[in-house]
């Protein structure tokens, strides 16, 4: 049986390692396309400054990429090491997108990144550009397959339970792939990566402009980044709205938590701008509301409603009661696979099997579950409201802040007077952490909001973990904290150092072809020609 401390420690470990991994992923997604865009300008115009720009940013890209790859391995391991029941229960479905990700995307990205770094002298310009695009496509395709897998956990489609093999099995790969949640989430998340890349490039460029170093490189990089960024931010917000719309219907408990919605109310529902939710008493202590806004936001109409926690708990109680016979029938089927009566009972109650599992945490023999145990299990279907409510608001606030920033940045950049807006350049530097924070908050909303399930409505988190002792969990947590702390220090140090040194170093010893003539005079001549 599962030790609940092990489940909680496994959750903590997974959350820490995933949030850490997700510090590096968005920048990889965004910067890879920015690099491709920069190199496209280089190849089409032939201006050497754009080669310098591409090579400089690719150096920073690689420092970030290494840690993203390294910490991504952890994620693949942890499903098996820490969530073994999850892995065997849904591996038939969940394993496929992960394996396809490796085959179709990660190979592409990883093979071509070697050529992107080492191939400058060996490849023709067009070939090298194609290689850079392969890296960008690879990293984004990779995100697609991972998010298809993730969306199965959020809104499971394309699968059904097989009582013979005691697990979920794939019923349609196309349904799995064309999950609405997956489509919206992929675009929302990958574009969030583009925003991150854009803010990063703009911020570092702003720092150079403030220091009056590498002005030509910084000014051009800044403009490309903010143009890319303003479009991307608008896209993130649009898709975030779509995701809320789709997710709100499929995961009502997550939506109720995001909005601090304890009581179901008639339309048009007000939106809680600020609230202090209390999980214990199921009320908000003090709230600031915008009338009508919630109906508009989540149903895109004035007369739409969404259920509050009160109604969701009642629904859960009914579903738990309906799920109990399914679990009991399954137990009989495990002992006697041919039991036709048990199979019929199972099929009659199959849709609430997961809810039956929920109460098994409190009553090992589900048929003996008391009303109190069922009520406890039903209350547990509501995730922790306060952290979800606030993560969501911080994310949205950051998104709006970035949109305002990019709009201003585009205006200044287009007027060619960004270098004189020194206050704005300082803001641009300070904006660098903002998209990272927003991405982490987005992860928290999505995954905390999924609780208490690993597969929404089907498999409870408490069952999903491996049957370990607490000792193992502490051992691995200590190991991760130690290693990851050392890694981030090394990464930040190298990143800051590379930025401080700047692009000049990329001219030490380059010597192939007229384009790479490295003398200062030739470079200046090059700029003069461009101007």
């Amino acid at each position: 049986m599962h030790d609940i401390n092990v489940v909680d420690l496994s959750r903590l470990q997974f959350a820490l390692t995933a949030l850490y991994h997700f510090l590096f992923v968005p920048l990889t997604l965004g910067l890879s396309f920015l690099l491709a865009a920069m190199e496209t300008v280089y190849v089409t115009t032939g201006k050497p400054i754009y080669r310098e720009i591409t090579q400089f940013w690719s150096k920073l890209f690689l420092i970030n990429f290494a840690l993203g790859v390294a910490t991504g391995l952890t994620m693949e391991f942890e499903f098996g090491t820490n969530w073994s029941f999850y892995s065997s229960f849904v591996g038939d479905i969940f394993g496929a997108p992960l394996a396809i990700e490796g085959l179709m995307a990660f190979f592409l990205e990883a093979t071509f990144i070697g050529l992107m770094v080492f191939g400058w002298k060996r490849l023709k310009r067009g070939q090298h550009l194609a290689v850079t695009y392969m890296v960008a496509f690879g990293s984004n395709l990779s995100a697609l397959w991972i998010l298809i897998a993730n969306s199965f956990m959020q809104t499971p489609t394309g699968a059904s339970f097989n009582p013979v093999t005691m697990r979920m099995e794939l019923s349609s790969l196309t349904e799995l792939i064309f999950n609405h949640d997956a489509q919206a989430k992929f675009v929302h998340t990958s574009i969030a990566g583009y925003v991150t890349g854009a803010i990063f490039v703009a911020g570092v460029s702003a720092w150079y402009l403030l220091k009056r170093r590498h002005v030509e490189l910084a000014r051009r990089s800044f403009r490309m980044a903010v143009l890319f960024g303003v479009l991307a931010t608008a896209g993130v917000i649009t898709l975030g709205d779509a995701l809320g719309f789709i997710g709100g219907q499929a995961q009502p408990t997550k939506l109720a938590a995001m909005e601090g919605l304890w009581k179901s109310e008639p339309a048009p529902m007000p939106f809680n701008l600020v609230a202090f939710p209390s999980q214990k008493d199921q009320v908000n202590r003090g709230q600031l509301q915008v009338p009508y806004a919630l109906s508009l936001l989540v149903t895109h109409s004035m007369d739409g409603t969404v259920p509050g926690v009160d109604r969701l708990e009642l629904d859960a109680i009914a579903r738990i009661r309906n799920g109990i016979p399914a679990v009991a029938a399954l137990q009989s089927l495990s002992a006697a696979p041919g039991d036709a009566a048990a199979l019929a009972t199972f099929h009659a109650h199959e849709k609430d099997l997961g809810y039956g599992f929920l109460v098994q945490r409190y009553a090992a023999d589900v048929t003996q579950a008391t009303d109190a145990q069922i009520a406890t299990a039903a209350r547990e279907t509501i995730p922790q409201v306060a952290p979800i409510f606030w993560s969501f608001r911080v994310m949205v606030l950051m998104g709006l802040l970035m949109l305002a920033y990019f709009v201003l940045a585009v205006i200044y950049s287009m007027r060619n007077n960004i270098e004189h807006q020194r206050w704005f350049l300082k803001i641009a530097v300070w904006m660098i952490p903002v998209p990272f924070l927003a991405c982490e908050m987005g992860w928290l909303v999505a995954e905390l909001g999924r609780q208490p399930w690993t597969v929404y409505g089907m498999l409870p988190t408490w069952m999903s973990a491996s049957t370990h002792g607490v000792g193992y969990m502490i051992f691995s947590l200590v190991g991760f904290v130690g290693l990851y702390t050392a890694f981030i220090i090394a990464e930040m140090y190298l990143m800051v150092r590379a930025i401080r040194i700047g692009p000049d170093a990329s001219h030490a010893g380059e010597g192939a072809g007229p384009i790479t003539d490295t003398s200062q005079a030739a470079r200046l001549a090059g700029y003069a020609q461009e101007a």
Partner: protein
Amino acid sequence: MDTYALLQITWWLLLGVLLIGLAVMVGMDMGVGTILRYVGRTDLERRVALNIIGPHWEGNQVWFVLGGGAVFAAFPLIYATAFSGFYVVMMLLLWSMIMRPLGFEYRSKLPSEAWRNTWDWALLVSGLVPMVVFGAAFGNLFHGAPFHFSWNLTSTYTGSFLGLLNPFAILCGLLSAALSVFMGAVTVMNGAEGVIHARARTLARVSSVLAIVLFAIGGFWVRGMQGFVLTSSPAAGIAQTPLQQNVSLVDGAWFANFQAHPVLWLVPALGFAGMLLGLLAAGARRSHLAWWLGAVAWLGVIGTAGTALFPFLLPSSSMPAQSLTVWNSSSSQLTLTWMVGFAAVFVPLVVWYTSWAFYVMRGKVKAEHVSADEHAY
């Protein structure tokens, strides 16, 4: 034969292909990491060795990722049981693996000698530990691992970390490390000249002799071992769980498949031939040929293990009846079908563009180029 059984066998073979791909491609890079401090005495020599695999280690590492992903997708019960059961080993493997990308990428970014030395050690650990674990994991398959299932297939592991470090597993771990060092050494021979080449050649010869000896000892050891025999189970190709079978332990049973089909003796023979001819080729400075022979050796060694164990994938030592086989731990027919389709399209594509990448980066890595190129590791 039934379609589902055919798919299961196809995936068993594909898993073999992926594991051999992993052993060859990741193994050579790990071998280079392992011998880095020996073949390179100065910083520049080490950088030459690193830059031979510099453009490729990242792509090669995906074989490892894909190996894990394929087990997850095609044999989820194996993935779940093995990864959770071998928790401590998996963590050590993982932690050594995640040092590798940083070792390559960060090592030469600072001029400090202490910094570079630290990463050289990290590369040694992250080359040697995973390859020993890889082999030791195979070794443990022959003894079985102590796990059992509840009614709903929740697995519980009852063994300890030290139990995995039994003598036979260590032997297999050393064999795996020896083959990895051989592949690393001939890869360095391919890309380096002069003294680095000479040191790598010495290592290639030593490691191939070692591998031949270890593989032979392993064979005799397995002969005296108790093997697992499936005495009753639902027919192959019928959806089933590990709760529905009987298994007995019989002396020497791991040789049963070879005795039943003598043509299978060709598989271990291929392993020996690869190592022996690899030794000769490395001695004759034919490093390209030696590399391919090393790949053949891996094919023979992994093929031998798979053939001996078939149809078992992960036997249970504490409850043999719940051992995992090709028939009771695979994914559903639909998943296996889709995955065969994806593999059929993408594996050749991957091989094709990987070959192109090696072609583009062909030739020797010269010290003066490494010190002049700021993109170099």
